[in-house]
């Protein structure tokens, strides 16, 4: 698997600082799992965070702070609540395809019709129910109508691929879209299955909403 499209440095930096919302962070994690180059980059940004923290002046803690922490060292770690048992629809994935490990704790809905040749399945993150994440599947050789994106959007290709004015995307690649990208993706002969997340907590807002409205016209 050759990865040719990576997240922008800005995006990796925001991931390393914890500033990405839970949905975008999940899609970045899916990319990092398969991309040693971006993992090294994020590790570099985390080292930058460590260096900035090291360079901080000393802000004294309350006089009792150390004693308080010492007193808690032998406490058992907090009991974690019963793990969420994910609800997952049968998705009938392409033969040999496996969903990324980062989706292990997520609820995954069934495929819903979204337009000719386009289906989506909603992904719910139990730790961030407001996150707007979905699997998106475009049938072989199908085009998606020209659309733009309202906000920052990340798409990780899981299977198959597509091409648009910015290039060809295959498994392991990540595409970034924002309000400046206007494109008309066309799926490869294998079709295209990807994991996508949007900035903001809108449901079917942003480009999906607009796409849907256009399809309805």
């Amino acid at each position, binding site marked *: 698997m050759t990865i040719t499209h990576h997240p922008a440095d800005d995006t990796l930096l925001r991931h390393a600082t914890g500033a990405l919302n839970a949905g975008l962070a999940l899609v970045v994690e899916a990319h990092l799992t398969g991309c040693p*180059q971006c993992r090294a980059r994020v590790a570099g940004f985390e080292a930058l965070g460590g260096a900035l923290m090291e360079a901080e002046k000393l802000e004294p803690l309350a006089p009792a*702070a150390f004693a308080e922490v010492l007193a*808690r060292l032998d406490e058992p770690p907090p009991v974690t609540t019963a793990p969420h048992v994910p609800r997952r629809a049968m998705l009938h994935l392409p033969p040999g395809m496996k969903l990324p490990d980062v989706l292990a704790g997520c609820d995954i809905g069934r495929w819903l019709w979204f337009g000719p040749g386009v289906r989506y399945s909603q992904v719910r993150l139990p730790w961030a129910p407001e996150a707007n994440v979905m699997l998106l599947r475009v049938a072989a050789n199908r085009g998606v109508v020209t659309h733009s994106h309202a906000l920052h959007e990340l798409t990780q290709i899981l299977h198959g691929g597509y091409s648009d004015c910015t290039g060809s995307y295959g498994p392991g690649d990540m595409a970034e879209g924002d309000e400046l990208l206007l494109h008309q993706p066309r799926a490869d002969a294998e079709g295209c299955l990807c994991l996508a997340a949007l900035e903001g907590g809108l449901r079917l807002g942003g480009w999906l909403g607009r796409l849907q409205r256009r399809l309805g016209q």
Partner: protein
Amino acid sequence: MSAVDQPSPLDAAAQARLIGLVAAARDRQAFAALFKHFAPRLKAFHLRAGLSGGAAEELAQETMLMLWRKAESFDPARAGAATWVYTITRNLRIDQARRQRGPAPQLPEEEFSPSPEAITLESEQAARMREALAVLSGEQRRVIELSFFSDTPHAAIAQVLNLPLGTVKSRIRLALVRLRDALGAD
């Protein structure tokens, strides 16, 4: 290495060694030294990120507690001690912000395999990082710092510096180009 050049009482190798002692022997003296070093910096870091004094103090304490509990998972071959502490405190802050209802997915941790060579390498990386920060211009350093110290970096930075968003983005990009050598990878 003179005491004047080294305002931090603990260098990276000493930090890694002390975390190793906490992991191997639950060594409270080692923990005390780590607390003395990291806790005031963590509090300052979170104060700068906009937390109240109370919240910054609590997060510093929680981070130290987590350092004690997770010391075994520190692998000096993968990250320097300060970097590791930074990721702990970042994750705690994310958790707090989300008031999470379930555990976030975690990539499998690789085995703990410290080696003196790895520790030396990491110390060198930390030193390179400090040097790289020093070459940034004042305004470049400011946008990088703000990236770490605000939750919605670009928009917040633009607001704080009273600059257009595009200017902030290009400043960050320029600063990152200058840091590229120190950050390793490609």
